[in-house]
């Protein structure tokens, strides 16, 4: 009993300290304060874009595109974007006074020149990212397209910046699938990375849950009661063949394998729910995990060689890792007696999961695949569940239940900048799955 208490104490202490750094004793320590969204963010200036030829249309595009680029970069939580009171006269580096930008506290600077051809309706955008401290060009790109596609151009440029600075890309082109009961039935929906452009994927008037994107984002697999029993539906998003995988009793929680046209799924064909590797047409390729009790919620490491899953074999739901090459199963979580929903980060360095404790309720944690570095990312703001990583590994989307309403939220990989996604949607939103 004493031993147990000490364990719990240590766990709580290490996990929660960053979030309760209120006492003077902790004030001087370098803990992340979730209440300050600008801490450790890179100050980047986006002064007014420069029209290469003045007309009415161009000034309108300039204002909206300047705002949108600031929105994109701020969205990542890496940057503190500001349009600043300073202006640039020209977009090229030789004409920029980096010292004055540096004095104003900026580390990076974006300049853009826009040219709009009234006759063709085409827009040309020349965008540059400068490293203010080095007084050097970091990224320079020119885009040409229809004027209404200016957001696409800016997303591409923002991706270039992310790639150059952090080696991450793919956030701005990504989508999030999720479940909503907006219509009175649980249906699968999708939206853009930032919650915009919500679209219905299914319209079955039944229970549809647990969406999973194929590695190339061309298929969505999910569990559906469309035929009255829980079965796995595989929907092509490019107009190709759809599949239904159905084994007796239970066919649930599909999860696509990285780089392969096959999935992990849970069937109860041998006594209790176990995890199998299947082809989309339902052929069982391999028994991945079979054991006493429930085995569910598979999630692969980025290279597909390991698979995290939830098992009740130890008496309560805990996360385990199956190593396919060694053919071993190791228990990953030991703290608390209810750990579920493993989600492997795209770089493979962390696994996000959900832990339930009597003291703090249901929260999201991250842990290294070797079981070290447990970190609590959400704290006492309702039930926090179902984490899924952005393809660049910088953000985690999850569901939060506050009162009776469940909605989607977003935070950085270390729990900062928690904010709601898909803000103006009625009903309950859950089980977000970020595309690859």
């Amino acid at each position, binding site marked *: 009993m004493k031993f147990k208490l000490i364990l719990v104490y240590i766990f709580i202490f290490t996990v929660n300290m960053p979030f309760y750094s209120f006492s003077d004793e902790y004030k001087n320590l370098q803990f992340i304060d979730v209440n300050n969204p600008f801490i450790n963010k890179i100050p980047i200036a986006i002064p007014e874009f420069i029209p290469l030829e003045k007309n009415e249309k161009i000034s309108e595009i300039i204002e909206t595109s300047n705002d949108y680029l600031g929105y994109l970069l701020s969205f990542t939580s890496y940057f503190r974007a500001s349009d600043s009171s300073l202006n640039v006269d020209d977009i090229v580096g030789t004409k920029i006074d980096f010292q004055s930008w540096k004095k104003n506290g900026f580390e990076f600077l974006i300049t853009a020149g826009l040219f709009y051809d009234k006759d063709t309706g085409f827009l040309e955008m020349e965008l540059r990212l400068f490293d203010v401290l080095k007084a050097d060009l970091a990224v320079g790109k020119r885009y040409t397209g229809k004027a209404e596609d200016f957001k696409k151009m800016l997303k591409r440029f923002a991706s270039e910046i992310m790639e150059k600075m952090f080696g991450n890309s793919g956030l701005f082109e990504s989508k999030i699938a999720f*479940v909503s009961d907006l219509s009175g039935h*649980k249906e699968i929906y999708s939206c853009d990375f930032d919650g915009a452009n919500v679209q219905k994927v299914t319209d079955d008037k039944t*229970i549809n*849950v*647990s969406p999973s994107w194929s590695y190339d984002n061309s298929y969505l697999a999910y*569990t559906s*009661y469309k035929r009255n*029993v*829980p079965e796995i539906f595989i929907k092509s998003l490019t107009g190709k063949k759809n599949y239904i995988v159905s084994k007796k*009793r*239970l066919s*649930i*929680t599909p999860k696509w394998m990285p780089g392969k046209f096959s999935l992990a799924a*849970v069937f*109860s064909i041998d006594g*209790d*729910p176990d995890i199998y590797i299947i082809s989309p047409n339902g052929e069982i390729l391999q028994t991945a995990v079979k054991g006493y*009790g*429930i*085995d*569910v*919620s598979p999630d692969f490491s980025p290279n597909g060689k390991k698979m995290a899953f*939830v098992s*009740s074999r130890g008496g*309560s*739901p805990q996360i385990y890792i199956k190593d396919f090459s060694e053919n071993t199963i190791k228990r990953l979580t030991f703290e608390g007696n*209810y750990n*579920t*929903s493993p989600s492997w980060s795209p770089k493979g360095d962390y696994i996000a999961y*959900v832990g*339930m404790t009597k003291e703090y309720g*249901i929260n999201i944690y991250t842990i290294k695949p070797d079981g070290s570095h447990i970190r609590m990312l959400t704290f006492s703001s309702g*039930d926090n*569940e*179902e984490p899924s990583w952005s393809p660049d590994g910088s953000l985690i989307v999850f569901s939060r239940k506050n009162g*009776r309403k469940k909605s989607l939220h977003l935070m950085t990989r270390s729990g900062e900048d928690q904010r709601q996604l898909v803000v103006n949607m009625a009903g309950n939103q*859950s*089980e977000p799955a970020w595309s690859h």
Partner: protein
Amino acid sequence: MKRYFSRFFIIALICALGLSFGCSSKKADVNEGITQEQSSEEDRLNAEQAEKDKKAEEERLQAEELERQKKLEQQKKEEQSKQEALRKFSDVNIYFGFDSSEISEEARAILEEKAQWLMENKNVKITVEGHCDERGTTQYNLALGERRAESVKTYLVALGVDSSRILTISYGEERPAVNGSGDDAWSKNRRAEFVIESGI
């Protein structure tokens, strides 16, 4: 003398006549009286008999009616108890502990009754639905609901019910019996429900 005689004769005659008249009339009266007396006695007896018969008939009818009603009542009662048993079978859920698919002591008694009913209603096929409370993930609860439904089935089969008569389905946390959070709602949602598919 002759006059006396004749007078006497006349008187006598008259008397005789009168007498005979009287007699005859009296006799007739008596006769009639007797007949009347006799028939009224018969009537009385008959009536009594009839009354008796009627009563007996009525009693018989009443008894029959009573019997019929009794039977009806019995049938009604049987029907009612059948309906009640049916209702009880489909309305009474069994409940589970948190994260558990174990059949509790209380649930065992209920399942024994259900098994008994299934043995008495041999054509009935049922679906056992496994449900969970809202805590835990959608996915884990789908699996847990399946375990619950299956453990109920296993128990019913152990009590002698043919396994081919029992289907199972998990609804996970998707169809709560009670909305809301808290121990009370949760404990009511961790359940198995019994749905009669056919054979009634």
